[in-house]
């Protein structure tokens, strides 16, 4: 899309070059030099396209910043910069007074880290199995894991809600007894379990690729040295695949931090009930007012952690999505 106007430009420049004998203003000089040197034209096109993408991806964040810095009484037809030359930095502090935003963020971190640990542990075992072992049922099992992701999250909601609110008893076979599933609603469990099930498949696919690339000889050598099978997995395979494990971890954390559905529905929205970021942002909308500047400020604060993670881990994100999505 972005390249359309630019390719239009370059056709006009080629068109104007016909009368180069007449006058040599700076523009026609630029035109003739770019005809002699097409690489320069490509370069110019490239910068225009890049600028376009930067503008479109970053503009919404800039707009949030403008809103956040606008004093509440000036929140009418806000333009491209905060009105009146005064920056209302207070918004960023008021967010924390209006709702306990730090607790919601803390909850998000705890949920993200717990999920990441569970997913890495289970997906490491599964990734090892799929990446390094040959056994009957391998293909159908992987397909089944993939198929779970076809369903809208809402298809899991009601039975899980019943399960987590303690309304379902699990019969113990042959004893006639039943145990209640632990009541998890309003605890991290009610979110961490669905998150883990939801995001584990991607990590399994990533780790399958990474573990599959390790030469058999290394594992065999460890076994000859006397390690157990599991020992070889945890002492040789996983350390050698550290970049893959880190990647799966980063992607899982970002996915949990991103998640909306279960974050929104599996708690009562109170900070003490482990409600994450979602509740913090939505909770800002007051009963009597709509504090747009606070919503914007909270959004900026909420984006910061993932923005930092993206800056630090961009290489991992790129390599992980390749491995997980494309190799299987």
């Amino acid at each position, binding site marked *: 899309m972005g*390249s359309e106007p630019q390719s239009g430009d370059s056709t006009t420049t080629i068109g104007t070059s016909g009368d180069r004998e007449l006058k040599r203003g700076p523009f026609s000089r630029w035109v003739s030099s770019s005809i002699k040197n097409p690489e320069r034209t490509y370069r110019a096109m490239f910068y225009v396209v890049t600028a376009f993408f930067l503008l479109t991806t970053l503009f919404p964040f800039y707009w949030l910043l403008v*809103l956040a810095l606008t004093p509440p009484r000036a929140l009418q037809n806000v333009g*491209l910069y905060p009105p009146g030359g005064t920056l209302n930095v207070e918004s960023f502090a008021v967010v924390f007074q209006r709702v306990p935003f730090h607790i919601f963020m803390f909850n998000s971190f705890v949920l993200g880290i717990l999920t990441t640990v569970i997913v890495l542990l289970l997906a490491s075992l599964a990734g090892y199995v799929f990446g390094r072992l040959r056994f009957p049922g391998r293909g159908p099992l992987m397909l089944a894991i993939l198929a779970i992701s*076809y369903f809208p999250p809402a298809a899991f909601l009601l039975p899980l809600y019943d399960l987590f609110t303690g309304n379902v008893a699990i019969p113990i076979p042959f004893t006639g007894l039943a145990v209640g599933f632990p009541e998890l609603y309003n605890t991290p469990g009610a979110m961490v379990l669905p998150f883990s099930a939801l995001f584990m498949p991607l990590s399994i696919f990533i780790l399958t690729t990474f573990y599959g690339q390790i030469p058999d000889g290394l594992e065999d050598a460890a076994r000859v040295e006397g390690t157990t099978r599991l020992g070889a997995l945890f002492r040789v395979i996983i350390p050698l695949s550290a970049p893959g494990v880190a990647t799966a971890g980063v992607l899982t954390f970002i996915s949990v931090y991103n998640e*909306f559905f279960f974050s929104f529905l599996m708690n009562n929205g109170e900070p003490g009930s482990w409600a994450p970021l979602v509740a913090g942002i939505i909770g800002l909308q007051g009963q009597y007012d709509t504090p747009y500047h606070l919503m914007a400020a909270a959004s900026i604060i909420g984006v910061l952690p993932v923005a930092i993670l993206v800056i630090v881990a961009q290489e991992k994100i790129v390599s992980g999505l390749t491995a997980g*999505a494309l190799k299987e």
Partner: protein
Amino acid sequence: MENLSETAYAYLLLVPALILLLVIAVYPLVTTFWMSLFADALSGSANLGQFVGITNYVELLTNQRSYALPSAFMPTSLTPNGIFASALGVTLVFTLVSVFFETIIGFGQALVLDQDFRGRRWVRVAIIIPWAVPIVIQGMIFYLLFQPGIGFLIGTSQDPSLLNQLTWIGTTPLANTVDATSIIIVADIWKTSAFMALLILAGLQSIDRSLYDVAKVAGASQWQQFKMITMPLIMPTVLVAMLFRTIAAMRVYGIIETTSACTTVPSLSCLVVTSFNQRAYGTAASVAFITAAIIGVAVSVYIVKFADAEGGGF
């Protein structure tokens, strides 16, 4: 453990992951399917709670449930059709339009990121960040951008300037189905083009660079190199990326709920949640399974048509 056969060992290691998936995914899916076979308030209160077999599915697919949802699930502009038809229509439009533009924009972004230039790390960060933004914040951003009164995108005054001519003067576009759908599509393109770009970039970087050297020696122009080398080699990657995005787009919910609530843009997932909230479990469950079936068909078509041709990606 050391004496187990490879097969037994494989299944033993899979036990923890399979238990999690059984309890948190398979059990609810089976239960939900069972629910879809019972009559609910939307099937008429006479046989409430009775086993009705596939009646829910039949009635949904033949659009006999238009009367059903009381709380304005159906925007007036969509009333002529049944609830299922409107939800399916909105979902398909959303999916086709957003995946189409995401592919084009993501491809463009990937081509930019594949170049070597100063500051490439930061450009890459800027392009990836929307993908990492939480859905609730993505919703907040687009809610604020299109909120009458505060933003310059929606003018409130009678200012005849060009910008106001181009925008919705004093109206709330998020309350109108067509406008809200367009805004949600833009929001989705903004966030997920980056995901597409990442996948395509990965594909671009796996192309053997010596092919381009050969082409240069043979005198191929940049455009010819793109057409004869890049395009054919990147197509399988692009198709897989489109498949992933199609699956996700068919299930769209969060961005709709956060910008405009499910009353103005009723996607299939919205219909599931709305009927759940109305305690119409049979209807909700049926819609969930029909959605998964549609996605399943799309995936199968993809696998048969494309993956085989490429020598099997799956």
